[in-house]
């Protein structure tokens, strides 16, 4: 078991009468990338600010390296703060040169000029901005500013780096570059706490994900758990499980169940622990739905065969197409070659199969 860097217990934060955060419990392990996901207003920024000691919680405790924050005072608190850094959304920079911005963390720590000079060029090299020292920080592009902010926050090798929406307002190419830098930063041993609303960013970076909804943590788990086994409808919808169907267990043998859905069809799925009469949500990710070719006869491998008419078909990013069926209103993602080969178009009737593993059941 690795060491827990930060632990929050029953944390809450009130602004006026409204809770921005409530009942937050989490543990962040050393060396991991911990993503806090949620739509805007969910409380991500507030959580990061509490953990960075920029604001005091209304209730609950935060433990840093096993010690409770409110018991840490004076110079010890400064020492603690200096083991962390936060890059706020939009990467605010000081009105100064890139060098002065990056050097800031070391200057307040009282390092020598020559040491700072070496460290700044190292830090700039790491974020791919070698030679930018004398540029005016405020005239850089959004992506460059983000990188400078990274260099600022990592130059003093903090134990924890908080990143608030680091790729907001960046185009996909710059987004990828920023993700690469985050991975680099994580590889040199810095624990990263990343607030984001982007699924792909969380998938590609996070070791662990906490989903925030209305100031409360809905679920904490690995990306697989969050994306494929969402524990609630809220999480499922948030992480892009487009098909969430209400249903009731009609039959159970202890491992598999048969469900009658509100969309009118029956499904069989793996459902250990469920008994007849349980109300559940069936979550099916759009890319998990398989279209069966017309020329292939149905075989026992194909579970849960449904037929429907294509209502809409649109290209998605990454050579994928998104299909919306009419009755049942399933959403299906298929690769381009399948669309071409099967000549899929609006109005065409197709057969689909929902594999047992694709149907993830959560209690309603």
């Amino acid at each position, binding site marked *: 078991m690795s060491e827990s860097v930060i632990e929050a217990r029953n944390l809450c934060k009130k602004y006026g009468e409204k809770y921005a955060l409530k009942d937050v419990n989490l543990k962040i392990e050393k060396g991991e990338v911990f993503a806090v996901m949620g739509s805007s207003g969910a409380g991500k920024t507030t959580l990061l600010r509490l953990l960075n000691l920029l604001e005091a919680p209304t209730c609950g405790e935060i433990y840093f390296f096993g010690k409770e924050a409110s018991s840490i005072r004076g110079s010890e608190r400064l020492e603690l703060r200096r083991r962390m850094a936060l890059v*706020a959304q939009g990467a605010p920079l000081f009105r100064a040169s890139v060098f002065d911005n990056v050097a800031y963390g070391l200057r307040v720590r009282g390092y020598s000029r020559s040491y700072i000079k070496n460290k700044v060029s190292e830090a700039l090299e790491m974020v791919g901005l070698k030679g930018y020292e004398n540029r005016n920080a405020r005239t850089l592009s*959004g992506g460059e500013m983000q990188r400078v902010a990274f260099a600022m926050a990592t130059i*003093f090798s903090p134990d924890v780096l908080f990143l608030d929406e680091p790729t907001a307002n960046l185009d996909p190419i710059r987004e990828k570059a920023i993700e690469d830098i985050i991975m680099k930063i994580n590889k040199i041993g810095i624990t990263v706490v990343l607030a984001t609303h982007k699924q792909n960013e969380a998938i590609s970076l996070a070791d662990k994900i906490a989903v925030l909804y209305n100031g409360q943590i809905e679920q904490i788990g690995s990306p697989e758990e969050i994306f494929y086994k969402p524990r609630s409808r809220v999480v499922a919808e948030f992480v892009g499980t487009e098909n969430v169907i209400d249903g009731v267990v009609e039959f159970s043998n202890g491992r598999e169940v048969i469900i009658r859905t509100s969309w009118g069809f029956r499904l069989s799925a793996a459902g250990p622990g469920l008994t007849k009469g349980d109300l559940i949500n069936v979550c099916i990710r759009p890319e998990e739905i398989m279209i069966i070719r017309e020329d292939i006869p149905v075989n026992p491998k194909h579970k849960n065969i449904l037929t429907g008419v294509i209502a809409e078909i649109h290209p998605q990013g990454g050579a994928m197409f998104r299909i919306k069926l009419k009755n049942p209103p399933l959403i299906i993602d298929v690769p381009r070659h399948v669309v071409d080969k099967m000549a899929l178009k609006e109005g065409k009737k197709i057969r689909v199969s929902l594999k047992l593993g694709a149907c993830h059941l959560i209690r309603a």
Partner: protein
Amino acid sequence: MGSMEFLYEGFIKALKLIISLDPYVLSVTKVQLAVSGTAVVLGTLTAIPLAILLAFTKFPGKAMSQGLITTAMGLPPVGVGLFVFLLITRRGPLGFLDLLYTPSAMILAQYILATPIILGVSLSALEEVPQKIKDMAFSLGGRYSDVIWIVVKEAKLGILTGILAGFGRAIAEVGAILTVGGNIVHIIGSQEVSYTRTLTTAITVEARQGNIPEAIAFGIILISLAFIVNVVLVNYVMRFSKGYENV
């Protein structure tokens, strides 16, 4: 003499006075710069610490104190002149200092006029610095004093604007220094040398006495000073003041 010739002649004589560094014109300019400059330096030394204090503390009545500052920014010079006059007149509470009709009295009056402007502009510049900048400094390991310092640095163009605006106010006003300065020149040797006569009060006096070339010369110098202040303002301040639109 036609009116154009009259103006032309006045203008040429004025230029000659300036180019030849006429001792009288020079001494009046010196007094103006010394009085307004000292007032602004003292005003800056008062206003900046006060602005920092106000920007970084919360207390009941803060909104009202800001209202007071805004009001004080528009104090009528004549009113301030009267106030200072009553304060330092022989029978006034500070009469024993014998300050009336001295450069010190003029500095005091301009200090009262310039300080609220420097304070008001600096304060809003300091308060305009976004929370994110303060958080950044704090989060990067800064102490509270480091945070204050970074905010001052962020606001430095606004503060400079305030100082220049204060100086612009000081060199442009005539009502206060005429009342408390007395517009006095000495004769040293056979040369008139300004004691409490400034460009603005000199223009008033010369124009009243019909000494058009002198009045024009002082006008040219005064406008040049105001122009320099504004060139500094526009070229330096505006060029380097990239706002917070990306923050």
